[in-house]
Every structure is written in structure tokens, then in C-alpha cells.
């Protein structure tokens, strides 16, 4: 049975990789199996984890779970055309609660913390910073300032303001370049993982 599973996994892996050549029947089959099985898997997981695990078995005295279940029931009202509009209520709740929750979270982490960490003595406390640290401090300060200017939408990017915004976009692009290289390396590990499966688990060429 284990060998059969490895052969099926290898067949499907090769099918997905065959997309690199062009769209073909093998890829279509693998894609349909992948999409269908994963959709079914997630349905079962969400049902057993949430409806059964959290609500049916583990609800206890937690009234919040009843509120969640009630909102979930309202969502099902979509199935009844006459009262389908009720399903907008839980959606409004989710969108509103998300916006409110993240307003405070993001304001704390993306605004306050960022500003706190950017405002620092550029030359070090008591002017004790090394040249390396000074350059680092100045890069952080200039990068944050000019980046923020780039994302200022109420003024045309012209003159000194435009120049500063251009510096900001340079900083962003340099950051993206570094991030690109770093992420490509991590994607290589995914490829290596699949090749390791094909040549190791399946073909047995890697011991």
C-alpha cells in the first residue's frame, strides 16, 4: 500500500511539473485531483475542527460559540432566496470587526513601533556610534522618511517632494531586490524537496 501511495504521489508530482512544458492532459488530471481532493479535505477539516470539535463537543458554557453558530446560521439564509439578504449581516459583522480590530493592532505595530524605532540619535547616544552604526541609523531614518513621502497621496510628486518620493521608491526597490533573492532561495528548497521525493522515495537513487 505504501509503495502504491508513493507511485501515485510521484505520478501526480510529475503531472504538475509537466505544466512547465505546456498545458496537457496529464496536468489537467493532476490539477483536477489536487483541487477536488484539497477542497474536500478542507471541508472535512473545517467541519470536524469547528462545527463538531469546537461547537458540538467542546462548547461548554462559552456563550461566544453560540453567537458564532448563530452568525453561521444566518449565512445559510442565502439558500432561501426570500430571506437571502439576512446573510449580509454576518458579513457586515466580519468586515466591521476585522477593520476595528486591525485598526488598533496595525496602528500599534506599523505606526507607533515604526516611528519609535526610527527616531534615534543618529550619531549614537553621547555621540558614541561607530561609522557603521551611523550609516545604518541614517539609512533607516532617510528610508522611512522618503518611503512615507512616496505613500503621501495628497500632493503631486514634483520638485523637492517628488525627489524625496523618488528616493523612497529607490529604497523600496532595493528592499524588493534583496527580498526577491532571499525568497527565490527558499523556493529552491521546495523544489529540492520534490526532487528529493522523486529521486529518493520513489526511484531510490538517493539513499
Amino acid at each position, binding site marked *: 500500500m505504501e509503495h502504491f501511495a508513493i507511485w501515485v504521489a510521484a505520478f501526480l508530482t510529475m503531472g*504538475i511539473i509537466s505544466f512547465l512544458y505546456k498545458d496537457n492532459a496529464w496536468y489537467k488530471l493532476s490539477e483536477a485531483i*489536487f483541487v477536488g481532493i484539497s*477542497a474536500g479535505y478542507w471541508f472535512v477539516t473545517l467541519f470536524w475542527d469547528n462545527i463538531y470539535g469546537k461547537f458540538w463537543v467542546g462548547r461548554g458554557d462559552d456563550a461566544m460559540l453560540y453567537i458564532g453558530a448563530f452568525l453561521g446560521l444566518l449565512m445559510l439564509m442565502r439558500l432561501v432566496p426570500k430571506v437571502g439578504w439576512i446573510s449580509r449581516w454576518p458579513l457586515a459583522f466580519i468586515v466591521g470587526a476585522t*477593520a476595528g480590530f486591525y485598526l488598533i493592532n496595525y496602528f500599534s505595530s506599523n505606526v*507607533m513601533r515604526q516611528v519609535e524605532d526610527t527616531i*534615534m540619535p543618529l550619531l549614537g547616544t553621547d555621540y558614541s556610534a561607530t561609522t557603521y552604526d551611523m550609516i545604518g541609523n541614517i539609512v533607516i531614518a532617510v528610508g522611512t522618511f522618503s518611503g512615507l513621502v512616496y505613500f503621501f497621496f495628497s*500632493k503631486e510628486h514634483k520638485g523637492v517632494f517628488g525627489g524625496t518620493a523618488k528616493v523612497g521608491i529607490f529604497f523600496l526597490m532595493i528592499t524588493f531586490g534583496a527580498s526577491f533573492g532571499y525568497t527565490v532561495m527558499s523556493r529552491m528548497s521546495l523544489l529540492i524537496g520534490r526532487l528529493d521525493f522523486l529521486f529518493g522515495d520513489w526511484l531510490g537513487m538517493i539513499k
Partner: protein
Amino acid sequence: MYPIWFQKRPLFTVLSALTIFLLFFSVSAFAQDNSQIDTTIAVDTTLAEIRIVPPSSVEVSDVGNDAGGSIDIHWQLSPEDQNGGPVISYSVLRAESVDGTLGDFTEIGSVPAGASTYADGNTVDGLKYVYKVAATAASGAVFESGDSIPVSSSAQWFDMRRINVFVGVLLVAGFIVYYIRQAKAGKELFIRKIAGLDAVDEAVGRATEMGKKIFYVPGTQDMDNVQTIAGVTILGRVAEMAAQYETWLEVPVSRSLVLVTAKEMVKEAYSKAGRPDAYHEDQVHYLTDDQFGYAAGVDGMVVREKPATIFYMGAFYAESLILAETGNSIGAIQIAGTGMPSQLPFFVAACDYTLIGEELFAASAYLSREPKQLGSLKGQDMGKAVILIALIVGLLLETFGIWNFSTLFSVIE
């Protein structure tokens, strides 16, 4: 030369000597071990006889700015609590005090020697507790302090340490409300050009001219992600344009809640454009919750149906390049927008236009030009202006050592 008995039995003689030597060595080692054990016991006995002065001044207080359930305990260390001294730890004892009657003391925790604080995070709000602290000696003997005054924990409505966050949010909210009122009063609010958003019209127009579909991918995250909310909001505007141009818009989604929301948005957009009849339920459809399953499904649709235009607006992870590269390979015009810093480089590389972070959130206001959204965007800009000024002032003050300005922005969790 050698004695006669050695000459007769040399091997026996050597082995005998060796055995005698080993026996002697073992006996002396055993004696030495025993003497060490004896010494240790002697030391322990000595320690047990020492009377340790117990910790004193046990002070208790409710932990402030919290949701209740916690009491802080502080005490003065025992004078014998010194490096190498007899005290090895402190035990914290607690008793409930109901109507002035004190219950039994039970140990709720311990800290090593040298520590003079303990946080009791397991209290019932409103119930009074009395604490005492006991110093434990190496011998196991325990020396207890006097009782603390009764104390109870309570929850606070506001965490006053985070007042700066409150003021900041209030300031930005004030700007937003002010500019929304201005916009509603008819004041023209200027928003600079955003290239990626100007291209939306062009992209929809191109699909119309080519008689091909528009694909809209609202990311792979659920509705509890603000980027998905932004993506779905922009979908409304794109759907309105698609309805006006009578171009087929297809929206594959990976989350059930996004499916429902996107359907509502598209349906409403078609009604708004005066074309409710052109809306089809299967325009917005579900594929799978699985990240790479979704990517495989969208890729398949892209290569088979060859849409003229593809939008990627929302939160993306590793699937970003897989999707954008496939779209690029069929020559579609692609406009992406995300706030995920790690995925932006891939969109920048593989798409024609990319909305970077904040631009994604500004997109809806930019495209719709609705007073409420424009006022909101303008208000946020004023918040950014305040931050820019704070950066300049703070950097100058801190660099010249005048004032530690950054503490104003310090956030305590």
C-alpha cells in the same frame, strides 16, 4: 640476584603484589569517600542549626492596567540571602480572607534566592487574599514572614499605558471625519496620479476590444484580512466597469466567506451599472481552500481560457509568482496589488503594474471618487504628515541629546 621464592614463582609473586596494591588503593579510596560523606553530613547538620531571619515587609498590590486576576507581591530579602548563603529559595503562600476570617495558607509558587517579587496570576477578582513569604534553607527548614495586608485583584476598563495609541487613533479618526465632511460639502480633494490604477480602465478596455475575459484573483486569505477586504472592494469597481463594457468577469476564490462577499459585490456592481441581467451566479466561483491547489486551478484556467486581463488584488503568499508568471506567459495585461512585502518583488517582476502596500488601500477611493472614501484617504494622509513632522523633530531632538522623543511612541503590550 633475586630471592629464591621469586625465582621459583615470578608470575605468582608479581600478581600477588599487584593484588595487594589494588586492595590497599581501594580501601584508602573508600575511606576517603566516607570521610567526604561524613563531612557533608556535618555541614548539613551545621546549616540546619542556623536560624535564618525570614523575609520581611511583604507588600501586595493589584496589578494595574490589566483585565484582573493578578496580584503583585514584593518583599525584603532575608539578610542571610547572599551568594553562597543558606537561603536557596522563597515560597509564596496564600490564604483567602472571607469576612475577616483567614483560611489555610497554601503554597502558590516559589522563586530562587535573590528574587524579591512574585506575580500571582491566578486570583478571583473581588476575593481578598493574604500572602506571606517563606525563606527555605538548604537543610529544608522554612522560615516564614509575617502576613501581608489583605488585597484583592480587579480589572481596569482602560490600560492607561496605551494612552498614546488612543490619542493617535483619535487624531487620525478626527482628520478622517473632518475631510469626509469637507468632501461631502463639495470641496474638491486632490489625489495624485497612481499609475497602476489609471491602468485599470485601459486593462478592462483591452479585454473588451479583444473579446476576452477578465480574471480577478482576490488573494488566498479570508475576510479577516484587511488586504482581502481591500481587494474585494476594488472588485466592486472593476465589476462595474466590466458590466458597462459588457465584458465577462471571472472571479475564482479560495475561501467560502470571500465567495459570498465577492458575489454580493459583483451582483451589486452589475445592478449599479444598470446591467443586473448580465450578472451570472457562476462568475464568482470557489476552487479550494488549499493554497497550491488554488494556484494549480487558477493556472489551468488561465492557460485554457487565455484572459486578456488579470487582476491580483489582496493577500498572497508563495503562490504569487506561480500565478503572475503563468499570466505573463499568455501575454495578459496584469495589475497586482498587495500589502505582503515578501510577495511584492514577484508582482513587480511579473506584472505590468503593481500597487505597493498602501496604494492597494487607496485604490478604492481613487477609482470610485466617492466623497466618503476620498475624505478617508485624505484624513490618513494628514496622519502621515503628522508622522513625517514627528520624525524630523524627534530625530533632531534625539541626535542633539535634548529629549528622548521616541518614548512618546512607545507601546506597551
